[in-house]
């Protein structure tokens, strides 16, 4: 069964997380993604035999290309000619310096769609600022807002913004493809990771603009919703927690029944949803008195059994054994030629007629040079040997 995007070819210059995550989504759903690498820059998380690299680059073809050589640039342009989409996430000056910016490439292939992802965007006084996921999160406001009330900011414990930017990049590409389908026109997409991340804090931006008060961190407290109990509660065992969210009186009564109606549940200060919300600290302490006696899984099952939203605060080992994720084949296995059996997270996009497919693990460095340069571009094997000797395929 062909994937939804199996008519597309994507030329991928991106590295680290945001770009590779974007092109992995395209590859999982059928696009032929050609990942361009170079021996000269493959260290650290870019190393082909690292879990991090393999996780975000499965299902892609791998070629090597030395872009510091004029012949390397020529080859890159020939690859653009056979591609529908070009993705890069360098600092804005890099593609320009190689002479591979959209102005040049769109003359070679006008119907091509090019996505440039960067920390700050392709224009503006900060366009050359260096940014990683954590940088973007700090600038966007989410680091400041992710914390406990009155405490220093903690932020999101990983490069969330890179995932978000990757996904928004995919969305922008698919929207540009719709336009191309109708008109035959390609276009350029300028994605600033900072702006993308800000768009996920829209309500906070409006709140500040409309009501004039700066927005402050609230921990796990439901600031804009009368819900209580609402938070994570310490359970039996080491660092085990269960999230519980009670949204109305009916759920509260079910909650009281399931924990055996201890006397504190009858107290006047917990009588209505508003009372409980206003006395959340006392309520949370009382709830935790119960949760501490039970394993988190048991708390979740008991509460879900009576129609209350509850969930274990799952760690990596919990995720790997999560029955719901397993039943939907969320984690997939692929054989890697150097690392053996590898496990990674599959696509959360479940399409009934054109499902995602997982053909192979991430490529070894230059694994597909022959297919791409010889079969696709028609370069003879002798010529390829010469290019290799001249250091163009490093």
């Amino acid at each position, binding site marked *: 069964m062909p994937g939804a995007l199996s008519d597309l070819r994507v030329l991928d210059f991106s590295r680290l997380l945001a770009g590779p995550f974007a092109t992995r989504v395209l590859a999982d759903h059928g696009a032929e993604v050609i990942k361009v690498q170079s021996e000269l820059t493959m260290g650290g998380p870019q190393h082909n035999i690292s*879990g991090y690299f393999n996780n975000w680059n499965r299902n892609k073809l791998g070629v090597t290309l030395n872009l510091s050589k004029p012949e390397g640039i020529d080859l890159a342009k020939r690859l653009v000619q056979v591609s529908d989409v070009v993705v890069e996430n360098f600092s804005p000056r890099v593609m320009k310096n190689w002479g591979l910016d959209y102005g040049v490439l769109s003359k070679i292939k006008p119907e091509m769609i090019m996505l440039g992802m960067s920390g700050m965007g392709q224009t503006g006084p900060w366009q050359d600022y260096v940014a990683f996921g954590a940088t973007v999160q*700090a*600038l966007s406001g989410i680091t400041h*807002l992710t914390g406990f009330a009155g405490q220093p900011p903690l932020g999101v414990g990983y490069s969330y913004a890179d995932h978000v930017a990757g996904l928004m990049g995919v969305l922008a590409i698919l929207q540009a493809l719709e336009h191309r389908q109708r008109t035959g026109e390609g276009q350029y997409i300028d994605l600033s990771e900072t702006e993308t991340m800000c768009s996920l804090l829209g309500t906070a931006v409006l709140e500040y603009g409309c009501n004039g008060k700066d927005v402050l961190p609230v921990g796990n407290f439901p600031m804009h919703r009368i819900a209580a109990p609402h938070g994570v509660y310490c359970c039996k065992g080491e660092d085990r927690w269960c999230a519980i969210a009670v949204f109305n009186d009916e759920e509260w009564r079910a909650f009281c029944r399931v924990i055996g109606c201890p006397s504190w549940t009858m107290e006047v200060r917990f009588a209505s949803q508003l009372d409980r919300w206003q006395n959340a600290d006392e309520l949370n302490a009382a709830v935790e008195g119960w949760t501490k006696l039970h394993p988190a899984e048991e708390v979740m099952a008991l509460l879900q059994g009576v129609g*209350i939203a509850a969930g274990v605060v799952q760690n990596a080992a919990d995720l790997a054994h999560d*029955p719901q994720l397993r039943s939907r084949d969320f984690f997939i296995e692929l054989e890697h030629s150097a690392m053996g059996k590898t496990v990674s997270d599959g696509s959360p996009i479940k399409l009934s007629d054109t499902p995602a497919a997982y053909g192979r693990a991430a490529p070894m460095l230059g694994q597909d040079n022959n297919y791409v340069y010889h079969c696709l571009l028609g370069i003879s094997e002798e010529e390829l040997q010469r290019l290799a000797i001249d250091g163009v395929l490093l």
Partner: protein
Amino acid sequence: MSLLMGPSALQGLRVLDLSGEKGAFCGKLLADMGADVVKIEPPGGDHVRRTGPFLHDLVHPERSLSFWYNNTSKRGITLNVENRKGRDALRILARTADVVLETFRPGYLKNLSLDYDELRRQNARLVMTSISSFGQMGPYRDYLSCDLVASALGGQMYVCGDIDTPPLKPYGEQAYLVASIFGAIGTLMALHSRHYSGRGQLVDISMHECLAGVVEHVNVRYFYEGIVARRQGSLHWDNAFRVYPCRDGYILLSLFREWDTLVEWLDSEGMAADLKDEKWRDPELRHKEVEHIIEVLELWTKEHTVGELMEQGQLMHLPWAAVNSIRNLSENPQLLERGFFVEVAHPEQGDSFVYPGAPYRLSRTPWRILRRAPLIGEHNQEIFGGELGFSMAEIADLVSDGVI
């Protein structure tokens, strides 16, 4: 208006948006790119309208700022799909649509004979995107979730917060937003394949999976190294970044890049302490004894303002950043220079308000907010009367029967 503004990427596509909080942003992502998204609310309005914050803190269904943000560029009608006439009207609407977007509990639409099998009988080209807590199948299918529970079960909260604090939920309803982005991508993939197959398909999005799919190092380190990642405050999982206090706020610093430059800078102010020692040039040691480096750096950052450190640091190619509040954001020179924020008119409030602008910029078919979120039933007459051809009498009947 569209003539003045140029072409839109999704012009000509119609989306029926039956979604609540889990999918409203999905509809927005399509509407702001030009799709005709019709928000279908129950009579009286979506319950999300009761979620704050509210304009000037006055609780009212037409003043919910989260509803405003997540429903821009849509038109709005009311329809009671639990009523027979309401279901008939939805089937008629489905014949005119390319996409139905819904976030009901699995099985709800089937009980009303409005599930995908039924709707595709009306329209074989229809794409249906269902965003739900756990997906349309599996042992948790009927479990309840929300932004907090999704963040917990998806593996996000366990690695957010400090080692001596409870796990912490990232700010804002990120679970709904991420599920919505995946939903919008799935929808466009289904529309893309429809160009070849001529047929629609069902897109099943589990919010739980979406979260478990955006936790960066968590799954990778477990499957490759057997490491169960823990919380460690603002210190990045690979120790590369951490938040530091300054005289006037907080800054995010990188610890390992351009080490010599950083030490020289500290030294020029007499604050390098022992970091000048040759041994610290070894990245392994810096990684292992990061706590000491943090101590020295913190004494230094406290002497400076956020702005001067960020500006100087970025000049030296250090990926440093101010830990911005939303107030800071609204004054950010880069965002202002790029015209990121947009004003959206709300005529009935006699005012316009500042919204975040484009999440990405397409050169030919720019993102835009066509209009503010719809009022309750704002386009009933236009759509039922003008487009579906219901007579005035029929519409009056629908109103008196509580259908719209």
